[in-house]
């Protein structure tokens, strides 16, 4: 396959996007798409501005962000801690291996009933559901990253008086596994947005709830505004994290 230069890729990407939106707009105006089911792209900015002026946009976004950040923080920390511990402590690993295999396939949304029973219709319930998906991603990423660390490094640590579990954890396992652990964190940041909307569908204020309201009124333009909001927030977080990752992994060639 012929490769495409970087600048050409950017140009083609923009062209594809513009063409898609233009086709969408024209199809609606020509009556090829039903206007009550699909909003007009050119109307989106005005609707977005309306949401901002009413103060609704900021209210639901900040509410979702708070569920998101609490859920992602708890899920990431717990996932990394458990994954690293399982990789370093064979007995602990064996003890919960079956339990992990049992719980792993349960989708985060299947925990909604328990979230409501345990936390009620509260922001904590949404954070709990978000944290579950994030937990598993970080758990498995950290586990395999630590397991893949060259055992030669452990021997070096022992040969230079750094053989204690704590010293090996902080001076070998964590820095050596950092690329894999950070990769898991990044995937978790994405997974968090996947569940944030669903976690709010049962009445917890946030982007998800606002989208449900809008769909009830057939306000498809408002739904699209929040779909794009999520895409933008995800891109922002991902970009920020990439920047941080680059700084932390300055040593990788």
């Amino acid at each position, binding site marked *: 396959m012929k490769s495409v230069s970087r600048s050409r890729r950017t140009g083609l990407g923009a062209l594809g996007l513009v063409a898609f939106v233009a086709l969408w707009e024209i199809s609606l105006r020509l009556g090829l798409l039903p206007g009550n089911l699909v909003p007009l792209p050119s109307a989106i900015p005005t609707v977005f501005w309306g949401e901002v002026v009413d103060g609704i946009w900021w209210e639901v976004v900040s509410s979702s962000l708070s569920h998101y950040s609490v859920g992602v923080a708890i899920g990431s920390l717990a996932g990394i801690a458990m994954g690293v511990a399982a990789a370093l402590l064979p007995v602990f690993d064996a003890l919960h291996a079956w339990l992990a295999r049992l719980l792993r396939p349960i989708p985060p949304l299947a925990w909604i009933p328990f979230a409501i029973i345990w936390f009620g219709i509260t922001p904590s319930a949404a954070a709990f559901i978000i944290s579950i998906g994030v937990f598993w991603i970080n758990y498995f990423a950290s586990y395999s990253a630590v397991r893949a660390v060259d055992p030669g490094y452990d021997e070096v640590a022992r040969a230079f008086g*750094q053989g204690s579990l704590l*010293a090996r954890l902080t*001076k070998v396992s964590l820095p050596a596994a950092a690329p894999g652990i950070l990769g898991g964190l990044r995937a978790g940041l994405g997974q968090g947005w996947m569940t944030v909307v669903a976690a709010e569908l049962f009445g917890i204020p946030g982007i998800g709830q606002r989208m449900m309201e809008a769909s009830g009124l057939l306000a498809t333009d408002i739904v699209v505004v929040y779909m794009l909001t999520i895409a933008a927030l995800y891109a922002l977080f991902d970009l920020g994290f990439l920047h941080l990752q680059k700084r932390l992994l300055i040593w990788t060639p």
Partner: protein
Amino acid sequence: MDTLTAERNADACVLKAHDLALGFGGQRVLEHVDLRLAPREFIAIVGASGVGKSTLLRALCGLLPAVAGERWLDESPRDGARPWSMVFQAPRLFPWRRIRANVALGLEGLGLSREERQRRALAPLELVGLGDMPERFPSTLSGGQQQRVGIARALAVKPRVLFMDEPFSALDAITRRRLQNELIDLRQRTEAAIVFVTHDIEEAVLLADRVMVLGGHQGGAPARVIDTLEITLPTDNRREHADFGAQVHHLETLIGAVPEAS
């Protein structure tokens, strides 16, 4: 036992092994190893691959437990130093640490301040000729430079015994020759006794005061010490010495002419 060895026995000693046996899972791979190492002495351990040289090295420093026998290393405490350290076959630097921090690894946990460790790491780096790049990451160094950092890391802790596990075998011929010469120079500037494992007999004769030959493991029998040879050549320009080739040849026949184990 010749008189020189007897004399050494009476002197100070930094490492001793008596009737040491090594093995894995109930199977002995090496047995009846006796060794006494004097301060600043350089002993090379040679033998065919699979004879257990690296295993013996790890048992002598204590990284691996022995199956039987005794092993003693002078571990009496000294400020800011460790009893022993090791140079590995692959440099095994921590890629996430800068050169200086790699060299300082063994200095951590010795009660030195951060500034002290940073300062102490610089001297051995200068000794191996890399004093001008302490802030670089290992991935930016050549294989030879990385192994030099590995040597600096081992020297930084001022070890009584320096264990070297085929440290030059992964390097190209030119770099290997250069590092061998540097090691000969280095011996004048370190207090450490050296235990050096190699499969290269020329290298052993070039560097060591004594060469311990392992073998006799044909037919599944555990290996043992076939012979220990004093190298009587002067330290300088050994390669050019008239007897160099003869000593190498003698060792080669020794390794090649191993009788079947009974």
